[in-house]
C-alpha cells in the first residue's frame, strides 16, 4: 500500500471512531517505514479535523467525539515511543491546563473543549471540576503551560475566573500564560472586564482562539 493510501486508511479509521482499526493501521504504517510524525500529521489529524467538523455541524455528538479521541490516544501510546526512538520530538501546538472553577460542579462543556483541544494537537492537563485557583497555577508552572483555560457555568462562580487572573498578577506571572475563560454564564464583556486573553461562546471557536494565542 502506498503512503497516500495508508494516510487515507488512518484518517478513515479515526472518522469511523474505530480504535482497533486505528491501531491496526498505525502498526501497519510503522511496519512499512512511514515516519510516525507523518502518521500523525497526514493520517490521524486530518481524520480528527473531519470529526471536529462533524461535531460542529451536529452530525455527531460528544460520545462519538470521545470515541475518536480515545482511538487517537490509543494510537499515541504506540506513536510517542516510536517518535522518541527515532530521535524526534512530537509536534504539539501548545500545552493547556483546563478545569472548572472552585465551587462549580459542571463538567460537560469543559470536557467537550478538552477533547477538541486534544484532537487539535494540544497537550491538555485536565484538573476536573471544583478546582482550587492555585491548582491551576501550580499545574501551569509544573507543565510549563501556554494557556490556562477556566470554565464557569454559574453566575456565583464566575468570580473564580477573575481570582485566577488576580493571583497570577500577584505572583508576577500573569504574562507567562494566556488565560482563556468560558462557560454558560460568561460573556466577551466579562472576559474583558477581568482581563482574560480569550473568550469563546463555543468549544470549536475556543480551539481557533487558542491556536491564535499560541501562534
Amino acid at each position, binding site marked *: 500500500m502506498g503512503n497516500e493510501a495508508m494516510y487515507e486508511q488512518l484518517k478513515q479509521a479515526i472518522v469511523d471512531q474505530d480504535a482497533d482499526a486505528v491501531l491496526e493501521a498505525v502498526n501497519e504504517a510503522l511496519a512499512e517505514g512511514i515516519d510516525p510524525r507523518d502518521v500523525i500529521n497526514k493520517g490521524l489529524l486530518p481524520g480528527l479535523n473531519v470529526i471536529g467538523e462533524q461535531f460542529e455541524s451536529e452530525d455527531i*455528538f460528544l*460520545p462519538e467525539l470521545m470515541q475518536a479521541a480515545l482511538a487517537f490516544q490509543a494510537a499515541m501510546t504506540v506513536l510517542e515511543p516510536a517518535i522518541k526512538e527515532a530521535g524526534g520530538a512530537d509536534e504539539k501546538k501548545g500545552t493547556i491546563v483546563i478545569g472548572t472553577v472552585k465551587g462549580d460542579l459542571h463538567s460537560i*462543556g469543559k470536557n467537550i473543549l478538552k477533547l477538541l483541544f486534544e484532537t487539535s494537537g494540544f497537550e491538555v492537563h485536565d484538573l476536573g471540576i471544583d478546582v482550587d485557583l492555585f491548582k491551576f497555577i501550580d499545574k501551569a508552572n509544573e507543565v510549563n503551560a501556554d494557556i490556562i483555560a477556566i470554565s464557569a457555568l454559574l453566575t456565583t*462562580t464566575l468570580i473564580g475566573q477573575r481570582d485566577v487572573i488576580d493571583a497570577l498578577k500577584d505572583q508576577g506571572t500573569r504574562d507567562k500564560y494566556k488565560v482563556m475563560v468560558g462557560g454558560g454564564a460568561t460573556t466577551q464583556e466579562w472576559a474583558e472586564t477581568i482581563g482574560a486573553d480569550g473568550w469563546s461562546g463555543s468549544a470549536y471557536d475556543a480551539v481557533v482562539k487558542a491556536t491564535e494565542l499560541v501562534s
Partner: protein
Amino acid sequence: MIDLIEVFDRAEVGPLISETDYYMKRYVPKLAEVIARHKVKWDKQTIINTDDDLTDRVFQAAIDLLAEAGAYCPETNRVMQFTRDEILLACSQAPRSATFGEDRERKTMYGRRPDTTGDRPWVHVGGGIYTTDEQIFMDTVEKMASFNIVDSVSVPSILHLRGKDSRVRSPQEILAACKTVRLAREGIRRSGRSGLPIINGISAASQPASMFAASYPDFGLRPSDGFLIDFLSEMVVGYEALQKVAFYNSISANIGSTSTPLFGGYAGGAEGVAVTATCYMIMGNLIFRGTYHYNAPLHSKLHLSSTKPLIWAIAMSNAAIGRNMGYPMVNLPYLGGGSGTRQYHYEMACYLLAIVTSGGNIFSGHPAMSVQSDSLVPDDHKFHAEMGLAAAKLTRAEAEPLAQKLFPLFGDKLKDPDKGMTFQEVYDARTKRIVNSEYQRAMDDVRGDLAGMGLEVPVS
C-alpha cells in the same frame, strides 16, 4: 415504592466505577442500545410528534435506560441501580398532581395528557435571571404576581450585598439567598396575592446550606412553595442533591425535580435527549420524591432550547410522561431572542404550541439565554402565558402546522439572536407602566401575526 433511605443506600452499595467509564461503558452505549431497541427516530422535520406509538416507545426506552445504566453518584463513585420492577412501581405511584400556595391562592397543578383541550393548564411565569437592583427585583416580582392569570412565579436572583456579588459557598451567598426570599415574598405581598407560590426555590442558592437557611419560615417560604433539586448532566445524583432531598422530604415540601439534558453532550441528538429527559422525570419521582418536574433540556453550544430537534425532544418527553405516568410538568425554555424582541415571542409561541399540546403546563421562558441582567420583563411573561392558554385549546396535530410556520421566523437567528431590552428600558420607574413604544409595538405585531396564522391570543 422503595423508601427514601433505601434510595440513599443505593448510592453506597452499587458497582464502583469511574465517571468516564460510567459514561463510556454504561450510559452512552445503553442509550444507543435502547434507542435502537425501541426504534426511536426523529425525522428531522417534525416539531410536534403525533405518533403515540413512538411516544410510548420513548417511555419504554427511558425505563430501560434507568434499569440498565443506573444513575451515577460522584461522591461514592458508585452506580445507583434500580430494578425494572422498582422503576415501574415508582411510575405507577407517581403523583398526578401537586398543590401549591396558601389560602385564596392555594391551587393544584395537574399532570396533563397530550391533546387535552378542555382543561386550563397551570400558568407559571418568571425565571431566576440575575437582577442588579433590589428595587427592580421587587418591582419585577410584584408585577408578575399581579397578573391574575398567573398561578405561580419563579423569582429572579439577587446576589449582591453592599455592591459586591456573593460567591458560591460563601456566607454572603447564604445572606443573598435569604434576602432573595424575603424580597420575593414582599414583592408578592405587594401584589395583593400573598399566598401565591414561588416554585423555583431558591434562585440565589447554589448549595444546600443556602437553600436550607433561606427556607427558614420567617423569611417567607413555606412547604407549599416549590423547591428545586437538580440532577447534574448526565444522570448524576450528587450528595448535595440528596441532602436537599432529605431535608425537603422531611418538611413535606413540594419538590421540583429538575434536569437539563444537553443536546450535543453525552445524550447526543434529538432521540437521546427525548429518552434522557423522560428518564429524568422518572428519576425525579423515584429518587427525589418530586411532586412536579422542571424539564429544561438545553443545546450544549447555543445554550438555548428552541432549536427544532430540541423542541421535538422536549415535547416528546412531555407526551411520554403525560401518556404513561401523569407526573405534573413545567418546562423551562431558554430562548435566544432578548426580552421584548419579535424573535423571543416567536420562539416562545413555537415552544408553547409544542409543549402545551403535548401535556406540559405553561411556563414563560428565559430570554437571551438568561445571560442578560435585568432581562426579566414581566409583560413578556404575561404575553407568553396568554400564548400558552391559546395553545391549550389545540391538539398536537392542529399545533404542528402553526409551529412549522413559526420556526422559519426565528430558526436562522438562533446563532446570532436579536438583542433585547431590560426592565429599566421598558417601564417607567415610578408608575411601572410600559413607556417603550418599540416594546409595545413588537408585542402587538406578534399578537397580530399569530392571529393571522390562526392562533388568536386574547389579552387577559
